[in-house]
């Protein structure tokens, strides 16, 4: 009888791990590839910092998992999907890469996700934030680790709506990411009794935002929401202050990384609300890890970079727990874990690949409040994942079972 139970347990355990149990670690090495923008417009918010973050995660594991070495490789996809796809195929076919992380721009993420699914490898998105990866094209071997446009929009929009700012005007970058932000935010505004007074979609990248700002000003909307990113956001905020936007009207960037606030300066950014997955000065754990990061890069980590660290660390831990680096078994393990590290809190990985976790509602400090460099935000609220993440999209086949 006892033997029977033991036997059943053994069979069950083998079933969980699948045939991979016998494999252990493929090729005697766990390789993590960081596929990012090392030379283009996203290289400050992700770029080399993401590579360093992945290395920190590997170091934290002692450079080994299940007795096999962990190696971090990196490459520049130049924000072009065909280059990204090419690099990923080479990594999977020839260099034994098991997992690829980061992916600024959704087009590169979508391209590589598809290949990884075919080859049974893992992708973990950090700076890739479009909700499109959770819809029709969702993949069982993909995790959108750090954040998505819906959660970003929900955090900021709900806070402002609660403040009584009901009418909105969007300045949107005319590409997938901008549309995604605008659509997600509009839905939240409609659900919470607000209204969208108008939208200006500008070609990407834009240089002069004056006419959109003027239209937004003229619309009398309470909030001028910026559904764009990087230099576009910074330019729009800068020019809004030039035209004297303020007082009753609030400018709200729906996605701003700490690198953007750094480059526009507190004088221009002060008072703005924004939602982030991570802020280095949140608590002792985040400060301790960020100090390590700062030592190597002389910059504080952005949420995207910190997300790469958390994703890599959790991936390695899941391999350790699963006893194999087979993608299906690792993903199954990740879905059982509660993610809690220096970056991500209360994280649960959903079937469609969304990592639902706590987000931070931040407000930019006044220059006088800031005690030193990188001391930029007051944490106004911790938003639970359930509050800000979108419901599972029925278009994703993984949400059906």
């Amino acid at each position: 009888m006892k033997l029977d139970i033991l036997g059943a347990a053994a069979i069950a355990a083998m079933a969980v791990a699948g045939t991979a149990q016998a494999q252990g670690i493929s090729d005697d090495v766990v390789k993590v590839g960081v596929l990012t923008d090392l030379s283009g417009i996203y290289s400050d918010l992700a770029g080399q910092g993401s590579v360093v973050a992945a290395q920190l995660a590997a170091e934290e594991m002692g450079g080994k998992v299940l007795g096999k070495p962990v190696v971090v490789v990196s490459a520049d996809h130049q924000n072009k999907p065909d280059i990204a796809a090419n690099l990923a195929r080479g990594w999977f076919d020839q260099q034994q890469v098991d997992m690829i992380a980061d992916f600024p721009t959704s087009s590169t993420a979508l391209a590589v996700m598809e290949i990884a699914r075919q080859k049974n490898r893992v992708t973990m998105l950090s700076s890739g934030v479009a909700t499109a990866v959770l819809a029709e094209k969702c993949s069982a071997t993909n995790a959108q680790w750090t954040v998505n446009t819906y959660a970003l929009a929900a955090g900021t929009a709900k806070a402002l709506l609660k403040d009584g700012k009901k009418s909105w005007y969007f300045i949107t970058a005319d590409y997938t990411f901008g549309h995604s932000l605008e659509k997600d935010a509009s839905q939240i505004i409609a659900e919470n009794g607000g209204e969208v007074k108008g939208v200006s979609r500008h070609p990407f990248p834009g240089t002069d935002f004056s006419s959109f700002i003027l239209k937004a000003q003229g619309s009398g909307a309470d909030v001028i929401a910026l559904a764009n990113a990087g230099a576009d956001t910074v330019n729009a905020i800068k020019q809004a202050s030039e035209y004297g936007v303020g007082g009753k009207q609030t400018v709200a960037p729906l996605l701003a990384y700490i690198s953007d606030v750094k480059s526009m300066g507190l004088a221009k950014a002060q008072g703005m609300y924004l939602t982030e997955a991570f802020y280095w000065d949140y608590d002792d754990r985040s400060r301790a890890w960020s100090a390590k990061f700062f030592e190597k890069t002389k910059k504080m980590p952005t949420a995207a970079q910190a997300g790469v660290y958390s994703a890599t660390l959790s991936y390695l831990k899941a391999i350790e727990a699963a006893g194999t680096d087979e993608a299906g078994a690792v993903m199954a393990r990740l879905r059982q874990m509660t993610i809690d590290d220096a970056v991500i809190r209360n994280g649960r990985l959903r079937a469609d690949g969304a990592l639902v976790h706590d987000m931070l509602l931040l407000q930019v400090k006044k220059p006088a409040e800031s005690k030193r460099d990188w001391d930029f935000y007051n944490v106004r609220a911790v938003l639970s994942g359930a509050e800000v993440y979108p419901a599972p999209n029925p278009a994703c086949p993984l949400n059906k079972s």
Partner: protein
Amino acid sequence: MSSTLRLFWLFVAAAILVPFFPQIVYPIFMMKVLCYGLFACAFNLLLGYTGLVSFAHAAFLGSAGYVTGALMIRHADRIGTEVAILAGVATAAAIGAVIGGLAIRRKGIYFAMITLALSQIVYFLAVQFRWTGGEDGLQGIPRGRLFGLVDLTSDNAIYGFTLVVFVAGFLLVHRIIHSPFGQILRAIRDNEPRAISLGYDTDRFKLLAFVLSAAVAGLAGALKALVFQLVSLNDVSLHTSTEVVLMTLLGGLGTIWGPLVGAALVVGLQNYLATLGDMVTIVIGLIFIVCVSFFRLGLVGEFLRLRKSA
């Protein structure tokens, strides 16, 4: 058989061996080289042999890719792959006829500028249309079955297919260049007024060369869409148009082999530079400067010159 063709078949024989030794030359890399090589051959037909500078070639590459890809995504179960490719090539040729038809009315730098402007309009349409997937592009394009029979899904099958299409495209360009039509094109390149005085309707010849070049570029684009199973905005961007100039120039303008050598170099560089971090643009920029300043004939061109003088 000319020495060029003998060398070509030697190259084809070597290319056939590639899938058997993936550790020496990675087949995916080789397929990318073949696609871009064909693309550069098409461009060379125009710039090298007709003397026309086009900044619209990405529009042909990309539009054919989009049409082929969209057809395969929607109708892969009903049509053979060859139908989707032909539709792509026809689209590229049609856009080529429109852009070429407008541009040949002007000469020199103005010609180039009209192609640039019109290709930006194609890019704009690719961003705005829904069926092109906007900034996300098209992903997961099925490779389908050739004539409804041969399954192209496996990497080896698509490799063989790519090689066959490349050979056909290359031989077509070779044939055009060495035909009486090709000689007229060269006459126009060297001295257009003289060609006119000989009684040729040069505009018609230029337009025909433009459309042919667009069609072959489209063939490369359709093929690329199937090989990589994706099409993106990058394929219709000005960046790709300048890249093909770089390939052709680096390899050797107006030589049969130049575009292929240039394509191999640029694709290889891209792969290599991807790990180099933020120095990519600096290195590519330096290559432009050095190439234009010191090796204007390109690698193949300089080689031929050295052999001639030796």
